């Protein structure tokens, strides 16, 4: 009896060798093919559209730039004003729609890629096949999260850069800037970071709830909370500067960073550095005058706490950083759930 049950090669079972990552990558590719093809395909199709439409936007914008004093009184009836109106009437609505879609993209990608990642295995019962194979469930799940996560981050990172190029003219014409919420979170490092967080939320709730549709619904809700939190805390990032009012305008309308910096608070001090009385402060802050700063009487100074547009990258790093921490924590929680409560 014992002779029969000996394995073919006795040494083989005592120390199992780890399976190579390349094989795990193939397994993940085979199981997540739909996600790994459809997300880049859809984004690729939209990218083609963005390039074509973006070339038109940039062309239209170049014509406007040639005009002196865009939107000023002197040009109201001129050809330049017509160009500008047409730009606002034809290019901007579509550009605005694209900006809104960019705000929705991370959560849509995250819910559709992350929600079913583990929930489908649990819903259809195939986890009982997959997680009893020699590879073991933890490494399979880690390989899945890593491969799909990295793919999504790379693809959305590239897409965010394309959107940044596409949207640049609107920053000049629509009085937006790179720190405006819809712009800031749709480009740079923050856009892929949001996508990764949404994906991590989807995967985590898929494992927790074990059902695809509830997991996707939970992803929408929790992602919205994260997104609102990001919008809320952004102004507290330690990148703001405090200067007298006139310094701000030296940054105004630099060609590479269009738009007005983000002014958080404004106050006025009188002679000797004491805070001005509210009535004086009001008069100064709401006072007339074509060039700001000139309206401030002698001895009084207008102060601002503001974020220069040049601090865009530090802000991107801070926001992408904490989003990444959340995503990694959710991935770890997912793997821990897989380890502890498979069935």
């Amino acid at each position, binding site marked *: 009896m014992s002779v029969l049950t000996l394995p073919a090669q006795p040494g083989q079972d005592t120390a199992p*060798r780890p399976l190579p990552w390349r094989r795990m990558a193939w397994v993940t590719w085979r199981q997540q093919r739909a996600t790994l093809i459809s997300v880049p395909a859809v984004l690729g199709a939209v990218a083609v559209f963005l390039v074509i439409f973006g070339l038109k936007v940039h062309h239209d914008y170049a014509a406007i730039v040639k005009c002196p004093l865009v939107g000023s009184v002197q040009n109201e009836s001129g050809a330049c004003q017509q160009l500008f109106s047409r730009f606002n009437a034809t290019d901007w609505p579509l550009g605005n729609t694209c900006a809104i879609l960019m705000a929705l993209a991370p959560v849509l990608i995250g819910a559709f890629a992350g929600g079913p990642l583990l929930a489908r295995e649990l819903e259809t019962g195939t986890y009982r096949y997959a997680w*009893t194979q*020699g590879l073991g469930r933890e490494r399979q799940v880690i390989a899945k999260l890593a491969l799909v996560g990295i793919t999504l981050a790379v693809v959305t990172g590239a897409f965010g850069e394309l959107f940044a190029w596409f949207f640049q003219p609107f920053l000049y014409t629509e009085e937006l800037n790179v720190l405006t919420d819809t712009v800031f979170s749709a480009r740079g490092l923050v856009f892929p970071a949001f996508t990764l967080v949404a994906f991590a939320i989807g995967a985590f709730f898929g494992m927790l709830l074990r059902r695809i549709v509830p997991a996707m619904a939970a992803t929408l809700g929790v992602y919205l909370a994260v997104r609102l939190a990001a919008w809320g805390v952004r102004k507290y990032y330690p990148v703001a500067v405090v200067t007298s009012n006139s310094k701000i305008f030296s940054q105004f309308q630099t060609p590479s960073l269009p738009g007005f910096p983000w002014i958080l608070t404004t106050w006025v001090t009188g002679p000797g550095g004491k805070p001005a009385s509210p009535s004086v402060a009001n008069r100064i802050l709401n006072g007339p005058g074509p060039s700001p700063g000139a309206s401030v009487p002698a001895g009084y100074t207008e102060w601002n706490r503001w974020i220069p547009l040049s601090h865009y990258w530090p802000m991107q790093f801070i926001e992408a950083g904490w989003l990444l921490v959340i995503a990694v924590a959710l991935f770890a929680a997912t793997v821990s759930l897989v380890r502890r*409560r498979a*069935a």
Partner: protein
Amino acid sequence: MNVIETRELGKRYGKTWALRDCTLALPAGHLAALVGPNGAGKSTLMNMVVGLTVPTEGTAAVLDGQPAGSPAALNGVAFVAQDAPVYKNLSSADMLHLTANLNQRFDRSFAKARLADLGIPLKKKAGKLSGGQQAQLALTLALARKPRLLILDEPLASLDPIARQDFLSAVLTAMADDGVSVLLSSHQVAELERVADYLIVLSRAQLQVAGEVDDLLACHRVLTGPAAEAQEYATRLTVVQTRRGETQAHLLARTSGPADPVPPGWESHPVSLEELVMAYLRSPGVSEPTAFARVQRATSKEATR
């Protein structure tokens, strides 16, 4: 060597125990039948043995003390879950390639030859195969891993009689060719009577009895005698089930064997496997399975020596 060893194994879902206090030692080389009604804890036991479910209490080990779910255990144990789950959108060939990539050991040529023998097309999606073909595909993938222990959860439930025959003969062939030990669960006893040589009975989340079929049949007897004396006689034996007529009583009892002396006025008959299983299922908790399993383990060890 024991292919499965559990010690006071238990799993609780909420307030309900799906399985409790299960101490079991299954020696190698058997086709063991795990029988019990639905909800008796068969799947729970199997899931804990293959490492899918983490026990609430106790321990489960396979293949000579490898903790359930450990890399060595996963490597040597193949599991075909209830309804033989396969990725429905993958073709048989892809399932084969997938399983090969998920395991260190996989005999591709064996798997391909077996699927060809069975007439299962490699190009067809697994979801489009018949229930019997899906079960055979899942079994083929499990066997091609060359496991030392094969665990099959209700493999026959969804199959028609011919497919059942084919499935069981495939399992028996693998046992003969590769020396694989098999644990197979079912709620149909009659079908297993011909093939199983080890029996494990679960009922109401408790292990009722476990042992080699021949031993169990040898030491269980139906004792028929005057109903009036039944009560007195029963106190001296472990009675699994009592059926009383007006004058006669039938006791299904555990004895030390067919040679066990019978009091005057009583007759001793052998039991069939189905009778035995039914008796344990009808009156759960009558036995002390733990103690009995230990005795069994001791005797089987002696036998191997």
